[in-house]
């Protein structure tokens, strides 16, 4: 997190967040000591493999986990209020108002028995005291905003009558219904074709610029993250192992996991016949984490100390931090 940012423009401040699920035989610590700050108008991409805790972190910001089976520790301040201390009523008002969320599969996130227009109108009326006609006009403007062709006709469509890209646009307009300051996006383009994915990514970037939205964007696709993000946070086994501006992460990665991840991606410049570099093994069991660094077993630069010492956060410069004991902080 950038230390240059003054306290006033910090919109989200997550301090030492831990999330533990008590569903199975052993408690699973899905998120373990995450710190993350997001300033107004900033786009952050959380990247990592399945089970790295990126979606759990995102859902924590709206406190969407089942309360009886989840233990959340730390603090999540959004616009000066701690989400973890909110009552059920406060959460109802908070969700969708200051912060809203879009999901990977809009067909599951939208209600199949109401038209898309009705769902947006309902969301507006839930948060504001205006007439239904005014709400409908707002819904139409939102559809135009996200560039849905023939918006008037589409407002009366049911989710199954729209294509994948169109449904994702409709969900974005639903998320924007009550002027949120922060948009949370959980793999919003993973289910889409490349040609439609780039349209949605460009739309997100445009909305962020024009409406001054902050966006936290979860993806496993580094390419998509580079297209929209200002900063990238790389997660592994429930922790942010590296975070920094997108250029530093792509050009000058510090953590061995980030380096390996970037090398394992097949992209245009790869010569045929060369082997892709792989990360041996698989991610650790979150119910049974090893002592020391959780990446040690798969790391190419591992030392004996890595298996004993729990790596602390190291600041490589004012904006770039990583968790690896072999890195040297700047003074």
């Amino acid at each position: 997190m950038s230390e240059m940012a003054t306290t006033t423009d910090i919109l989200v401040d997550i301090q030492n967040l831990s999330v533990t699920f008590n569903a199975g035989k052993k408690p699973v610590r899905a998120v373990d000591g995450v710190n993350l700050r997001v300033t107004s108008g900033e786009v952050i991409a959380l990247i990592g493999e399945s089970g790295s805790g990126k979606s759990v972190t995102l859902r924590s910001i709206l406190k969407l986990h089942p309360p009886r089976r989840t233990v959340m520790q730390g603090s999540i301040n959004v616009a000066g209020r701690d989400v973890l201390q909110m009552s059920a009523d406060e959460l109802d008002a908070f969700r969708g108002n200051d912060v809203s969320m879009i999901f990977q599969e809009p067909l599951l996130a939208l209600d199949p028995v109401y038209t898309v227009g009705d769902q947006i109108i309902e969301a507006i009326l839930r948060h504001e005291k205006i007439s239904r006609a005014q709400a409908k006009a707002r819904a139409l403007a939102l559809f135009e905003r996200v560039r849905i062709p023939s918006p008037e006709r589409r407002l009366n469509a049911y989710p199954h009558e729209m294509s994948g890209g169109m449904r994702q646009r409709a969900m974005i307009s639903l998320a924007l219904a009550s002027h949120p300051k922060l948009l949370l996006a959980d793999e919003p383009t993973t289910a889409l074709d490349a040609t439609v994915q780039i349209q949605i990514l460009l739309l997100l970037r445009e909305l962020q610029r024009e409406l001054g939205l902050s966006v936290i964007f979860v993806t496993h696709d580094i390419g998509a993250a580079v297209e929209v993000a200002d900063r990238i946070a790389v997660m592994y086994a429930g922790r942010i192992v590296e975070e920094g501006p997108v250029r530093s992460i792509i050009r000058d990665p510090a953590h061995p996991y980030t380096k390996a991840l970037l090398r394992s991606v097949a992209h245009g410049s790869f010569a045929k016949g060369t082997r892709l570099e792989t990360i041996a093994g698989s991610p650790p069991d979150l119910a049974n984490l090893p002592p020391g660094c959780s990446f040690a077993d798969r790391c190419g630069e591992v030392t004996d100390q890595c298996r004993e010492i729990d790596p602390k956060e190291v600041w490589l410069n004012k904006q770039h931090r990583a968790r690896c004991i072999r890195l040297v902080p700047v003074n």
Partner: protein
Amino acid sequence: MTDSKKSNDQGGPAQPLLSVKGLIKHFALQKDFIGRSTGVVRAVDDIDFDVRKGETLGVVGESGCGKSTTARLIMNLLDRNEGEIIFDGMSVGGNDLPLKSFRRQAQMVFQDSYASLNPRLTIEDSIAFSPQVHGVPKREAIERARDLLVRVGLEPRRFAERYPHELSGGQRQRINIARALALQPRLIVLDEAVSALDKSVEAQVLNLLLDLKEEFELTYVFISHDLNVVRYVSDRVMVMYLGQVVEIGDCETMFKTPRHPYTKALLSSIPSLDPDNRTEEPPLTGDPPNPINPPSGCRFHTRCVHVQPVCKEIMPKLIEQPDGQSVACLMFEPKSAYQHKSILLEPVL
């Protein structure tokens, strides 16, 4: 193994391993109350292509373009309406090559590694299942299965007696690959076989596929929506749009100089991985049209930047260009009514 391979080869290296001619598959839509069909989905609409011996043919296109239907038609998992599938000179399903012996030589790996394994069979039983169907005694089939587990990088002593739900996605996909290899096939159709895997696991499985291809002299048809991966594994690439082939040819040539406007748009929607060179304009607007009522003429004309009135009337044919790439676009069809307006639109000859 090598002996059986040699006796399998019928027409020598020059004859394509797989030749698809005039393949058509239309799915009838739900019938109305007196049993009349209300229309058809033209999932695959008259396509021709060859797969050469020992190559990897990549197949790309947006969802709904007919990639997976083509794969299932090749494997005879779906009945075709029209067309012929010729495997090493013999018509599949004909007297020379009955379906059962074709299936011994052609296998498929699916995207969903969990759904494609029987949850009640152990890993070794799953792999040994199809050899037993083809008459291999059980003990020998199990022995071969354990051998294959080693080949795909899984220790038989640890894995052979486990069930699919005890494995990770990457491990399960290795099992599916081992099962496909169990009959010593010559052709493997991989339908989005690595798409559900995490990047680091995907790289492991891609490396494995390339090793196995060399070791067993395999031919792959590799279907994927991930263009970077297709570029990495393929020798030739086929681009499909709304049930038709729009461009087919050498992989590197196509990625460097795509001809068809759709191929160009598709390739430029790949994220660049360069923070200073982000995409500013989407190369294509809108979603692909509905294959129930595809546009007239060239099916891409509704989204094409170079569209002319003639494109709405004449359906372009797939025509081989001087460098061996084939393109279905009026811009590249000699003596078509397409007017080349500027130098920029001139075909690369």
